[in-house]
Every structure is written in structure tokens, then in C-alpha cells.
């Protein structure tokens, strides 16, 4: 019963909050939809902290795609042994995780110590940074310490298939029951963080301007439909 709550109800609930909340905020209050940069107030520490954190997140995202979305059979098929995979995951994933944690801690300290930033930080801002540090910190612990000292846990046989089963609406929650506690906590805190996205500055992750290189440099826009309709 408990298993059903944590590995079926909770993930769907948090993802629903994330998706519906984001759409609602985009539609009703797009004026608040930004990447709320504080570079204008301080750029010395941001120069280190922000790229470290953001590039770390991008790497970590790729790592999660490799571990969670790509099935273990694929690796076996292309001939990547379990040892090779974990070797890469520990070093690559460990590096990405350390970048995220180090970057976020620099940004947090910066926010705490510089008046101009601290005074304008909201609860949501603190919440985002601190919960990111917690989630990423657990991830780093799992990747670097747990994997090397306790056991090289094969999450591609349990968490991976369970995660994919969420998307075909056939959640196999039983796969998660025997997963080590630290992995369970990482998954649960991560889903909680997803649910907070629409209410914090994290919404800017949807807004990566990847279409920018494709568009014309100069943008003309007509005030009315007169030209568009060609009346």
C-alpha cells in the first residue's frame, strides 16, 4: 500500500502539478515568466557559480537520460559492459553532480551574503536553491560514495524500468520496493522539486531559446492584422 502511494500516486500527482501549474502560469501570468538573473547586481561570483551550475545540470540531465530512459538491453546490444557503464556513470555523473552542487552552493552563499541579492530574494528563491542542493547532493553521494563503498547498485534494472513505466501509464511500483533507501529519497525529493517548478524561478528551464540561431536577426511586427491579412 505504501508502495503504491510513493511510486504511483506521488509521481503522477507531482508531475500533474508541474504540467498543469506551468501551463496555467504561462497562460495567465506570462509577465512573470523569466530567467530572473541577478547578474545586474553582482557578476564576479556569478561568473563562476552560474555556468558551473547550469552546465552541470545539462550534463546531469544527459546522464539521467542515459541511465533512466535508455534500457539496459540497449547497452548490452551495443556492447557496453556493466563495468564500462558504471565506470562512465561514476566519473561522468560524479563530475556533473559536483558541478551542480558546487555551483549551487556558490550561488547560495552569494545570495546570502550580498545585500542587494538577499533583500530581494523570495521564499521561492531560497526554496529552489536549497532543494536543488539537497537533491543534487544526494545524487552525488549515491554516485560517488554509495556506488564505490557500499554496492555498485544496478538501477537500470529497477528504477529505470519503473520510471519508463510511468510514461506508458502501467506503473510497475513493485520494482521500487527493494531499492536502497538513499535512491528512494533521491527520487522522491526530485519529484517534489518537479512539483515546485511552476511556483518558482525554475520555470525558465522551459524557455531555452534554441530557436534563436534559426530566426532572422531583425524582427518587424505589425501593430494590427492589417498587413497580415493583406486587406
Amino acid at each position, binding site marked *: 500500500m505504501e508502495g503504491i502511494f510513493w511510486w504511483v500516486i506521488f509521481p503522477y500527482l507531482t508531475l500533474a502539478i508541474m504540467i498543469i501549474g506551468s501551463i496555467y502560469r504561462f497562460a495567465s501570468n*506570462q*509577465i*512573470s*515568466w*523569466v*530567467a*530572473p*538573473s*541577478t*547578474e*545586474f*547586481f*553582482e*557578476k564576479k561570483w*556569478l*561568473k563562476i557559480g*552560474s*555556468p558551473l*551550475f*547550469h*552546465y552541470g545540470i545539462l550534463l546531469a540531465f544527459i546522464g539521467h537520460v542515459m541511465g533512466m530512459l535508455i534500457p539496459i538491453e540497449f547497452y548490452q546490444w551495443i556492447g557496453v559492459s556493466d563495468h564500462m557503464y558504471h565506470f562512465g556513470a561514476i566519473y561522468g555523473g560524479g563530475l556533473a553532480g559536483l558541478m551542480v552542487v558546487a555551483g549551487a552552493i556558490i550561488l547560495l552563499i552569494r545570495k546570502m551574503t550580498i*545585500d*542587494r541579492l538577499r*533583500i*530581494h530574494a*523570495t521564499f521561492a528563491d531560497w526554496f529552489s536553491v536549497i532543494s536543488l542542493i539537497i537533491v543534487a547532493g544526494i545524487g552525488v553521494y549515491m554516485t560517488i560514495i554509495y556506488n564505490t563503498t557500499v554496492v555498485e547498485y544496478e538501477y537500470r534494472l529497477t528504477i529505470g524500468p519503473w520510471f519508463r513505466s510511468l510514461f506508458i501509464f502501467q506503473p510497475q511500483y513493485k520494482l521500487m520496493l527493494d531499492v536502497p533507501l538513499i535512491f528512494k529519497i533521491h527520487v522522491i525529493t526530485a519529484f517534489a522539486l518537479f512539483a515546485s517548478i511552476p511556483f518558482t524561478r525554475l520555470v*525558465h528551464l522551459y*524557455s531555452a*531559446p*534554441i*530557436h*534563436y*540561431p534559426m*530566426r532572422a*536577426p*531583425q*524582427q*518587424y*511586427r*505589425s*501593430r*494590427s*492584422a*492589417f*498587413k497580415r491579412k493583406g486587406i
Partner: protein
Amino acid sequence: MRIKAQVAMVMHLDKCIGCHTCSVTCKSTWTNRPGTEYMWFNNVETRPGPGYPKEWENQDKFKGGWEYKNGKLRLKAGGPMSKLKNIFYNPDMGTLDDYYEPWTYDYANLINSPKSEHLPVARPQSMITGKYMDKPEWGSNWDDDLAGGSEVVPLDPNVQHLQEHIAMEYEKTFMMYLPRICEHCLNPSCVASCPSGALYKRDEDGVVLVDQEECRGWRFCMNGCPYNKVYYNWNTHKAEKCNFCYPRTEAGLPTICSETCVGRIRYIGVVLYDADKVKEAASVEDPQDLYEAQLDCFLDPFDPEVIAEAEKEGINNEWIKGAQESPIYKMAIKWKIALPLHPEYRTLPMVWYVPPLSPIMNHVTNEDELNTDGYIPTVDQMRIPIEYLASLLSAGDTEVIRKVLLKLTAMRVHMRSVNVGGVDPLSESKLLEEAGIDVETVEEMARLLGVAKYNERFVIPTGRREMDDDLYYQQGACSLEDLAPPEGVVTAPFERRN
């Protein structure tokens, strides 16, 4: 040919008295909300000086505008790919300290202070942090009327074109005012710098605007604009800029800075230009050719072919008539006495300046017998060095400035002979020949520059409401209510809205 109309401005610097009324009325109209305290859509700089933000003309620092390299026009700060790479940290953008920390005073203390031995004072209080500031150290016009000093002059990149001693020698010091707003360029680099596509140039009147819904706060426009006229609202985390008071111009009224200008230095009118020529004009190799290239983009509103083409593009009679009567067309295109600010940035700016005359440095000995031609050399001996004006207005081409100053001098001399007498008639002089104009033009110029009334200075056709999709839907669409506290609420410095 792709004809577009552009609402443009000319400022006649001779008449600017540096009173900052334009800045103040602009501020109280547009930027008196939390997050915008440091912004001045309109500011007046004393030159030589670092300007606002400090050293904005130093493009080695801010990397604003375009550059022409290897036969290609590109953003100086780098194209889209390099912007995506730098999106987490923009190395070229300025910070609040390049502008200044806005402050107010703790006036309440004057009233609430308990009885004490000393008079209570109103201490300066930061409008960013709400904390007391021991000493405000810079402001948007901190060096007002100082025009130099060994601390300030080296911060003016234009002075580097002069021999240093000219600016620093006491006898040779000079000063002028430079009021600045957004240039509403034909080739705006802020628009090209925006990853979200939130900045755009309006088809109908060429005003460059920021879509507040679409802006995601990537901040590349801030330093992408070489004039540093796009600002970052730290409260809403979005870009804001001068909008040419479009709610006023659409109603046929001048911008608030022009309306309230004490010296009546500002002129507003429509010019027609060929949008297909813009890129080519911005890509001429020699920066000194940019002025001429931009002039080539403009179209003659009296040419029947242009009129026919404009009508096809949906520009109506009122706008064509506006272009024909436009004071901007006369000053910038017909008489060529107005010049673009820093054409070398290749943005093709649309706020142009009539350079100021200044007193003659050398004593004129035989003034009583001075004939008209005697004024020709005076142009080269004016207190504001031609080189300095050229660095501001013609990418360093002194001949362009000299020509304009000759025209203005010819106008003065002629009007003096008409009104006071005492000099030989202008019509037979070499001054007129060198300036390249005729007496009729001189008199027309004198009228527009000296006595023109409101309706001659501001020829603004109204926005075309008949083209609007749905007026009911647009009701309140340009309101700042989402961004600003309701009117009448005291905006405490540390009060913020999400």
C-alpha cells in the same frame, strides 16, 4: 523597394540649455516604479564626460552594436551561437554600478525625529536595498556641467581622438550637452541580440519595443545596444526601454521629452525609407561612409513613384503628407544639417543631432569691418573642437561637421545682416558657396530652427486605429498595472512585487 515609415527625432543642440526637464518628465511618466529607479529612458549628458552609464561609448567594454568583418556584418558581442553559450553569464553586460545606485532621502526623519540638540537630517537611503548610504558617489548626471577634470575626461572615448592637451588645458576647455533617448535604429542591434525575439521594430512607425510577455530576461539587449539604452528591470527581471511615448505619438502628440523641452530643441516627424537597403547600408566598409549610406536609404516623399509604392504598402495619405512636411526630412535629408549619433555602430540610428556652434576661441580684431567671408575661418576656431563633434556625429569625418557648422554660421550671419545690418549681403559671399546652400534655404532654416511653432516642430500623423483588430480587446493593453503598483501608493524602496 519595401517602403516603411519611421517616426524620427532631431535635436538641435545649439538650443539645449541642459535643464534636464526632458529627463524628469520622462522619468515621472515611465520609470518611477520599483526596479526602474536607476533607468533614464532620456538622459542629458555633459560632454566631454563618461556619460550614463559610465563609458557607454567604450565598445571594447560593452561590445555593443555591429562590426563589419571579413565582408560580413555581425554583432560585435557575437552571434546567436556564442550568445547561447554565454547565456548563463553575459561577460559584456554592465552592472548597477556602471549606472548608479539610486537613492532617496529619509525625509520622515525630519518630522519624526525626537527633540535633540542637533537638527535632524534626511539621510540618503538606497532604493535598491533600503539601507542608509553613507555617501552617494555617482548618478546619471553626476558630472553635470563639469565637462572634464582629470578624473572624468579620460573616461570619454571621444577625447582620445583629440590631442589630450586640448581637453585638459584650462584655456581650451569646452562643454556641450548631449540629450539621449533610444535611437529607434533602422538596424537595431538590441533586436538582433534578443534570444527570445521579444524585441521588435514596429512595422507602422519603426518604434523599437520590448514585448513584456515574451521577454525572458536573457539580458543580451542591454549591452547589445551600443547606446546602452535598453535597461534591465531588476524587479520584473525584464528589459525596458524608451518607447518613443507611442501612446502619445499614436494620438498625434509629441513624446513627453519633446513636449516639455524648455529650449524647444526637439523636432519630430516621419521619414520614409527603403527597408531593403538597410542591410546593405549598414555593411559599407568605411565607417565614414555610413552617414551617406544611411541617407541613401531615405526616400523622397514627393516622388510620385515613391508615393505610389508607399500606398501599395498600406501607408495612407496622412502619413505621406506627414513625410512631406516632416521637419526631420528637411533637417536631415534636404538641408543635411542634422547628423546621426555614432554612425560607426552600424545600427543606423534615427535620432539625429544638429551640432552646436560655440564661441570663437581667438579674438576677432577688426570686428567692425568684418565681412561675411571673414566668418569662414571662424568655424575652425570654435571652442568645441570639430574633431570632438566628428567623433560623436560622423565617425570622425571632420569635413561633414565643418560643412554643417558653415551652414549654421551662414544662417547666423545672414539673419544678423537682415535684422541688424552691418555685414555685406550673404548672397554674394563665398561663405554661402562653401556652405553649399542658397539664401532661400538659409531663411527657411532660420525659421525652422528659430521660430517654428508647435505644429511645425512636431508633424506626427496619428496611429491608424481603423487598422486595429479588436479595440475592445486592446483596452488597457499598454498599461503598466502588472508591473507597477497602483497609482498613489508610496513605493517604499524595499517594497517588491512578483
